[in-house]
């Protein structure tokens, strides 16, 4: 092992650059997925004939597929049908597709956790269904969704590492470049990279737990 060589200032800077891209890609993806997830989750919750069923099938299919396959597909298979995306866009698209399905379920769970009596009360006070959802159900559901969404963001941060297969220059990819130079770099680089993920994710998990216990 060569700890000082593996963790020279240049290498640490390179790893930090990679981690920055990991955080950036994960953040953009979670924001986009949140928007799509709210839409899909609400459509599934609202029990609109046909539409809700179609959304359910879509969400379940995506949720039951490995993310790696979706990333692979977006970058390598879509060009075959004429859709060419840059690495970053492909990575963000793939993560967004997968996370949207995950968040749709969190949104639906949040909506379902609101007592049905409230909907009946709101409807009988003269609100339309849409108004009821927007002003009564959604605000309460959103508060309950926050902890699971933070947990999902942790998964997403970890899963961003799968983008190594499309050579997205994120943390894992940059780590590979460093340890490819010298066998003695491998273990120290792994430890540092693991610690980088750990510190950020552990802090996020503490926040998620804090929020959860405050609601309970």
């Amino acid at each position, binding site marked *: 092992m060569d700890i000082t060589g593996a963790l020279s200032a240049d290498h640490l800077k390179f790893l930090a650059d990679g981690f920055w891209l990991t955080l950036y890609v994960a953040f953009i993806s979670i924001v986009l997925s949140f928007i799509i997830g709210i839409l899909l989750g609400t459509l599934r919750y609202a029990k609109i004939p046909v539409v809700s069923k179609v959304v359910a099938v879509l969400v379940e299919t995506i949720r*039951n597929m490995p993310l790696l*396959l979706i990333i*692979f*597909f977006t970058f390598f298979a879509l060009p075959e049908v004429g859709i060419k995306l840059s690495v970053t866009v492909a990575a963000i698209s793939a993560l967004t597709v997968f996370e949207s399905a995950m968040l749709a379920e969190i949104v639906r769970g949040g909506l379902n956790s609101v007592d049905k009596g409230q909907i009946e009360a709101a409807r009988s006070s003269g609100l339309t269904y849409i108004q009821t959802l927007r002003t009564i159900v959604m605000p309460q559901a959103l508060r309950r969704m926050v902890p699971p969404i933070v947990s999902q963001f942790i998964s997403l941060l970890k899963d961003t590492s799968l983008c190594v*297969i499309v050579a997205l220059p994120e943390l894992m990819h940059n780590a590979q470049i460093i340890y490819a130079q010298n066998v003695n770099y491998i273990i120290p680089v792994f430890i540092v990279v*693991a610690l980088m*993920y750990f510190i950020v994710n552990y802090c996020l998990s503490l926040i998620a737990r804090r929020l959860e216990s405050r609601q309970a």
Partner: protein
Amino acid sequence: MIDFSILINNLDTYLEGFKNTIFASIIGLVGSFIIGVIVAVMRIAPIKPLNWIGTVYVEFIRNIPLLIIAFFFYVGLPAVGVTLSGFVAGTIALSIYTASFIAEAIRAGIQSVPKGQMEAARSSGLTYVQAMRTIILPQAIKIVIPPIGNQFINLVKNSSILGIIAGLDLMYFGDIVSSHTFVTFDVYIFVALFYLVLTIPLSLGVGYLEKRLARNH
């Protein structure tokens, strides 16, 4: 349109990968369950140093990517003279990673049994281990089954990382079919279908169990 001749002509290759994905998932499930039970017991045992070790394991492993663990076994260990095949390295990594989630599920299940029951069992003369085995665990198991089922579904999906480390699974053989046929789109549609054949029935099963066990409470 999707070209089904790709599936028919390469069925053996697909099935080889499918078989290995199932193997890796089952070995991973057994491995992660064993490690998960040990870690869960460490976390709740009335011995402080064991609690710490259990907590460090769960918190550390849960918060790092599975891929790092897999690379550690596949790329890192050869650097210190231990060489593992992609399949073995990947399966060990899957077991270690999933164990952290299973340990948490088991711990939560055990702790959901009211404390008074342990106290009552102990004061009726049972030892800690007897009370655990005959009173607490049979009740906890019901609560623990659905989350473990969900972890198993994740495990099946996560086993796709074997494809990155030459682990001979569905993803890996998908790659082989794709390089033989020069087709990517259709080849991976079939890979996706093979995964769905495994995961959709599992999700439906877990969903059913969740509803049934929830009714009994």
